[in-house]
């Protein structure tokens, strides 16, 4: 498949597809971070995680319209506002869902799977009713459009760089929150041993609610980033949930670095192969490789080594 191209063309193609994959990478990282935090903390597999992302995307869409019609002067900064609002909107919905649904189902993993699946259907239908079945797109401010030419053929999309910077910032903040703050210590204690965490004085229920909200909030930000690579429809989130699970499992649960590395590998592999093969063939190859590696390393790419 490479024989149709000269070597300089090949290098350029790899570079271009690599940069194009950055947005996908960012969406994966943000989604997977949220999912991994929630799964690690509560053992809840949140099947509705994609819908939380889409909530963020719709929030971005609404704000983009709002700014366009009412505050055109501020349109250039609307994206920052949108991300913050998306974070809090998805986070608030997450807290509500935890309070109304998830907390009654702890220690029943299969039931939470079904319940969050049901929730995802409910949310999809709600989006369909409110926003209509047709996909919507957002308009980006001018400074996010276009690309920086690196060489004659290689161009780097600006929004890709922006989203990537954003993702790194969020990943670093999550790292500090989890590993350097008092709250993070409590979260990790609950993850390790829930009854014991309660017995040293940690309010496990409150920790659960905030963690769930945080995970969903990050998904909301992922939704904001998502508006740059795809148009937002009621069921767009579904397409990403499986890939996100793949990223989490491949990276090794509870390893932040592993999640990022695996998101990078998977998104780049997909993006590069999609150029040469069809999209579904690229997915098949990615899945096969991941399955193969997981058979050799069931604990994922990165896993902590301690004696117990």
């Amino acid at each position, binding site marked *: 498949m490479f024989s149709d191209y000269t070597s300089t063309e090949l290098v350029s193609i790899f570079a271009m597809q690599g940069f194009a994959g950055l947005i996908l990478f960012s969406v994966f990282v943000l989604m997977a971070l949220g999912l991994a935090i929630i799964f690690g903390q509560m053992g809840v597999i949140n099947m509705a995680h994609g819908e939380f992302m889409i909530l963020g995307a719709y929030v971005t869409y609404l704000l983009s319209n709002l700014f366009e019609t009412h505050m055109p002067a501020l349109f250039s900064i609307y994206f920052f506002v949108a991300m913050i609002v998306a974070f809090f909107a998805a986070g608030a919905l997450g807290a509500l869902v935890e309070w109304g649904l998830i907390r009654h189902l702890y220690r029943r993993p299969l039931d939470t799977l079904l319940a969050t699946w049901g929730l995802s259907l409910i949310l999809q239908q709600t989006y369909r009713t409110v926003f209509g079945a047709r996909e919507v797109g957002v308009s980006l401010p001018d400074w996010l459009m276009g690309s920086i030419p690196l060489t004659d053929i290689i161009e780097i999309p600006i929004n890709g760089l922006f989203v990537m910077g954003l993702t790194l910032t969020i990943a670093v903040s999550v790292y500090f929150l989890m590993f350097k703050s*008092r709250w993070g*210590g*409590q979260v*990790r*204690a609950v993850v*390790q*041993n829930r*009854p*014991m*965490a*309660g*017995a*040293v*004085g*940690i*309010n*496990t*229920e409150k920790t659960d609610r905030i963690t769930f909200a945080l995970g969903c909030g990050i998904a909301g930000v992922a939704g904001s980033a998502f508006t740059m690579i795809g148009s937002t429809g009621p069921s767009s989130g579904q397409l990403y949930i499986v890939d996100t699970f793949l990223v989490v499992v491949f990276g090794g649960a509870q390893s932040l670095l592993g999640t990022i590395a695996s998101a990078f590998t998977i998104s780049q592999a997909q993006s590069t192969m999609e150029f040469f093969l069809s999209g579904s063939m690229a997915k098949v190859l990615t899945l096969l490789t991941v399955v193969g590696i997981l058979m050799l390393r069931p604990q994922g790419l990165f896993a*902590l080594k*301690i*004696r*117990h």
Partner: protein
Amino acid sequence: MFNVNNLSVAYGQSEVIHGMNLDVKKNEIVAVLGRNGMGKTTLMKALTGMIPSKTGSVLLGDRELAHLKSYDRVKAGVAFVPQGRMIFSTMTVKENIETGLTTTKTKRIPEMLYTLFPVLKEMKSRRGGNLSGGQQQQLAIARALASQPELLVLDEPTEGIQPSIIRDMARTLKKIRDEIGLSILVSEQVLSFALDIADRILVIEKGEVVHEEVRAQVDEQKIAAYLSV
């Protein structure tokens, strides 16, 4: 100071603790002895709120704890060192102790804890899971003390620990009692350790207190008879 009245605990239909009464006075060390399967761990877990009790009251001072969640009991002043230590193995020693600070207003680990357990200071950035059994036990006690309790509850602290360290531990626990001025309730199987530290000894069998004596008048033979299989 700490009064348990008519406490019953059941796992589903099978009742394990039957209407138990016990009390711990201020600055007193009480040891609960009993063979395997007599309900020691169940009792300790019920007192700290890790499993719910069926009936009865648990009073600390005049505050009723029986319906509180375990983290609220810690806040009220009951700290727990569980059987098997249960430290958070992927977290560092320092982080482990810090989890105990959750209910307090302090942000920093009190120096006093490091004075009591100097080894923890040396190892403060090691992961808890990489400590030896005796060190983990010290960590579990330090973590419990960090919440500034009035009552320290320990469940079989000597389990799986070598004899010389057991003697150290008895000394440390008494020192803690004298320096901080708290009460200690400890469940045990090792008679010598219980005799070493306790002011009063209770023997439980099949979920009931069958024998109670103050340390000074203890009839060692009689208690040993209860413990032998």
